[in-house]
């Protein structure tokens, strides 16, 4: 058996090393590491917050492609930043990549796209013949209310949105690649000399002179006005697509909070006294980059200049503070490694079931679960620092936090119980939780650190109500997980000669349910107090509030029924399984109803997962009922009854 252990452990090690090598041995890219680093660490304002360009590129690619990487025409894997740089500087290449995920055969049929699969990826060039149809359909479906749209209609809208974003991105540097023609007129000769065309940066520098010329022309009875207007129209045409990336921070002294794109900067330049020279140099750097060959010294200089100017401006405004940390967060990919190590820990746990007395496996078990738990906690902590927020502000974060709490509580139980049951559960729950979080991120395809709606903009209530109520959720799910171990063990006839095993499981379930009651009750009441401070009522029977109340009520029912002796140990176990189902309803189910004030938590991509969960849990309840009827279970009640008897005798 020891030989088998070593065999599995060796393969796990080889697998780990191979993964690390594959990860690091990225085949040669057309973009140097330095270029990628400079662009990745640029700051951009998007959806109300300042974030690294790497984050923006990553979310954009995820939205289009359903994952954070794609293959180029040579089959080489591209990172989000490489893809993004291709879109900006080599748009014709980027249009050939299969970057648009179409997940529905009906959508393919509507757009006359051919594929042997039901779910496939297409390049922009593949979509061009269907472009008109796509936008016509999207315009038609946009007027249908969300709830009434079919899946295909929803996906047509998403695809149209993605195509628009892609076109905006690939056309972003059009202004920098094509100089603007200067009409032959003495007015322009005075400003630009003998030049027949000029770059946007030159126009921006000369914008006060152009404004003066316009005023002068108007006062001179219109002489030259037509030429000036023609020129201004040419500028508008050139900057039409330059609106998608707001990468120019406002001047340090400015009170404006809105960052500028080259387009908005150009518009603002004609209404200001004189454009800020540092901001103009950002545009100059973009022009240098757009007109030089990638890999050349000129391109490298442009990238360095773009980075220096924008970062300096952002730093002067104190808006670059969290960018390096966010880059580290995404580069470190702690949740991915956490998942990977949780899976490995589960393999080790499975081995420990087969060789329960093996000391090496026993010694490795705790660190094997502790390390991914620490990575998970570090990831959550990093997010808190980056956002200056408590750990739970979005549904995505609830998954991470609930997983972390469930695993930590399970580890604590293992510390008390030492039967490796809680440790095994910690490993399984860690794996499932982090996997679910990663999956959820892909389903949602958005920035996981969005701006907060006004009512949530309070760290006090987020750190009290939201944190406590989600700890209640975590406890409910953990209790349910322990109950599953009980039922499965009983179904398989495990540990039949060890009644202490089942007593221990019941005690743990009972204890975790008590823990859950404390946090769910306090969290729910705190939520009411928050609502009383925000909306003027403690309780409004909102679906999310009701979901939390249902958890509290169910825990009260089970615990009171146990105290009164209406149910015994096995009743608590069944109650815990039901508790898990109620937590799932409260956590995700109510969000699918699409009503209520907690509209910041709506999500529609999880219905199938939830249905699957309920199907499995219903089957589990049937198995549990069958066990109660047909299979003798070691029904030695745990000493949770000691307290109950005392409570009853008190009456």
């Amino acid at each position, binding site marked *: 058996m020891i030989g088998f252990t070593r065999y599995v452990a060796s393969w796990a090690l080889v697998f780990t090393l191979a993964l690390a090598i594959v990860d690091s041995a990225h085949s040669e890219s057309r973009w140097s590491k330095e270029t990628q680093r400079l662009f990745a660490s640029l700051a951009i304002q998007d959806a*109300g917050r300042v974030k690294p360009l790497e984050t923006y590129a990553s979310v954009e690619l995820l939205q289009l492609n359903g994952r954070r990487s794609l293959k180029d025409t040579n089959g080489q894997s591209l990172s989000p930043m490489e893809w993004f740089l291709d879109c900006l500087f080599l748009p014709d290449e980027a249009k050939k990549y299969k970057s648009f995920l179409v997940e529905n055969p009906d959508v393919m049929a509507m757009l006359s796209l051919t594929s042997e699969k039901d779910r496939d990826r297409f390049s922009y060039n593949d979509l061009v013949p269907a472009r008109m149809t796509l936008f016509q359909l999207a315009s038609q479906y946009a007027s249908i209310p969300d709830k009434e749209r079919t899946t295909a209609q929803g996906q047509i809208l998403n695809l149209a949105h993605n195509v628009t974003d892609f076109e905006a991105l690939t056309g972003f540097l059009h202004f920098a690649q094509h100089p603007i023609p200067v009409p032959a007129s003495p007015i322009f000769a005075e400003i630009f000399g003998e030049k027949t065309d000029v770059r946007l940066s030159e126009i921006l520098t000369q914008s006060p002179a152009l404004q003066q010329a316009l005023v002068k022309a108007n006062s001179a009875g219109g002489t030259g006005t037509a030429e000036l207007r023609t020129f201004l129209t040419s500028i508008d045409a050139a900057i039409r697509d330059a609106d998608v990336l707001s990468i120019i921070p406002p001047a340090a002294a400015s009170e404006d909070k809105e960052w500028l794109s080259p387009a908005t900067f150009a518009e603002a330049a004609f209404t200001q006294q004189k454009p800020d020279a540092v901001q103009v140099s950002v545009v100059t750097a973009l022009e240098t980059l757009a007109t030089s060959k990638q890999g050349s010294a000129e391109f490298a200089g442009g990238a360095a200049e773009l980075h220096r100017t924008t970062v300096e401006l952002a730093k002067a405004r104190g808006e670059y503070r969290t960018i390096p940390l966010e880059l580290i967060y995404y580069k470190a990919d702690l949740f991915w490694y956490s998942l990977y190590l949780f899976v490995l820990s589960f393999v080790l746990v499975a081995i420990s079931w087969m060789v329960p007395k093996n000391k090496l496996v026993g010694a490795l078990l705790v660190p094997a679960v502790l390390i991914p738990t620490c990575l998970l906690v570090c990831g959550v902590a990093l997010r808190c620092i980056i956002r200056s927020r408590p750990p739970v502000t979005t549904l995505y974060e609830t998954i991470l936090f609930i997983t972390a709490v469930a695993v930590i509580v399970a580890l604590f139980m293992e510390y008390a119980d030492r039967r490796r049951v809680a440790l095994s559960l910690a490993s399984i729950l860690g794996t499932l939780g982090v996997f679910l979080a990663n999956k959820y991120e892909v389903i949602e395809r958005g920035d996981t650190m969005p701006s907060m709606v006004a009512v949530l903009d309070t760290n006090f209530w987020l750190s009290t109500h939201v944190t406590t109520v989600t700890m209640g959720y975590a406890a409910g799910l953990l209790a349910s997980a322990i109950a599953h171990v009980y039922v499965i063990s009983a179904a398989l006839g495990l540990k039949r000669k060890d009644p202490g095993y089942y007593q221990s499981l019941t005690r743990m379930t009972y*204890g975790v349910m008590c823990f859950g009651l404390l946090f769910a009750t306090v969290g729910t009441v705190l939520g009411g107090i928050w609502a009383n401070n925000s909306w003027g009522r403690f309780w409004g029977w909102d679906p999310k509030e009701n*979901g939390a109340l249902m958890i509290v009520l169910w825990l*009260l029912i089970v615990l009171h029924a146990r105290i*009164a002796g209406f149910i015994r140990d096995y009743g608590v176990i069944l109650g815990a399984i039901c508790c898990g189902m109620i937590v799932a309803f409260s956590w995700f189910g109510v969000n699918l*109803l699409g009503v209520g004030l907690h509209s910041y938590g709506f999500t529609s991509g999880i219905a199938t997962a939830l249905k699957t969960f309920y199907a499995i849990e219903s089957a589990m309840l049937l198995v549990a009922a069958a066990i109660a009827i047909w299979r003798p279970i070691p029904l030695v009640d745990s000493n949770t009854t000691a307290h109950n008897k005392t409570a009853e005798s*008190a*009456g």
Partner: protein
Amino acid sequence: MFSMSSIIRTPLRLAGSYWVTVITLFFLLVLTFLGTLEQVEHGLFVTQQKYFNSLFLLHQFGDTPIVLPLPGVYLLLIVLGVNLLCGALIRLPRAWSHAGVWISHLGILVLLAGGFVTYKSSVDGHLTFYENETSDEFLSYNDWEIAISEVGDSKARIIPGASFSQLPPGKSTTFQAADLPFTLTISEFAPNATPSPAKDGARSVDGMMLKQLDRDPEQERNVAGAYVTVRDTASGAEHEGILWGMARAPFEAHVGDKAWTIALQKRRWKLPFNVRLDKFTRELYPGTNTPKAFSSDVTVTEGETVQKYLISMNKPLRYREYTLFQASWGPQNARPNDPLYSSLAVVRNPADQWPLYACIIITVGLLFHFGLRLNSYLRQQRERRT
């Protein structure tokens, strides 16, 4: 023969039994679940009235004719409160180790009592105004009333909505007052209606009829309407009219030599102070239309006292027995530089802070109790291992 003590103790034991606790909690759970699902189709207001504010109800399963009689949440909470009190009387604490249980149950009682006081005596509505406007009253979100005033007299006689809003179809109700020279008959009250040109056979007033509309799940979107008949007490002459909640001008009736206005309006309450909106600020996340924060700078004037306050999300103004919250703003389709209004929720609730006290009590109780239990569990586990 029953002893006096057993005559008292038996019903107490029954009312305070765990059976009552568990069954009541179970029904509360079922009602909460059904009431949550019901909101999808019928909206919050109707569901709340039917499931949560009621003594009994009939739950219908989808579109099927199957109905299930159920106790309402209001009744269940009363039963739970009685059960808690009786349970406390028959299970008086004997050991300090149970102190946590008693403390947490006391917290639940405070919470239930707070809910009862709120339900019975709180008043809530909204005060909506533009910058530089002043108001000393707030309006109900849902309740209607009829205001009768003599033209030129600011004093209005009020008929509360409860007197006419539950009228069954085809029924009418008549009001009279000693100082009014007429009686007012209200009929065909519709919770959601709109005036429209009269159709053949329909009841019409000056070529218009009141068209009944389906009730909107969003209660605030419903606009009520009713027919009224003003009957001159002296001459017996009658004037018919249509009242509608969004009417630009009230219905006017001439009785004798005087003119009277009759209006269907949202119920309103007077504040014992004036509130002036000095400035409304809406901050958006840069480059988006997502509100980051909104707040109202207000001046509260009461007699000679003038004070300035800032009301923002999560930071209400508590003044005397009233609390003013930053609830919303509008118009939602306003263009840049359009004037915006601020809507403050106004609540008078004697039990406003009771949930906070309950929360503290429950937390202390549960922490104490479960802390003891955890300690005992850990001790047992240590003993088991040694």
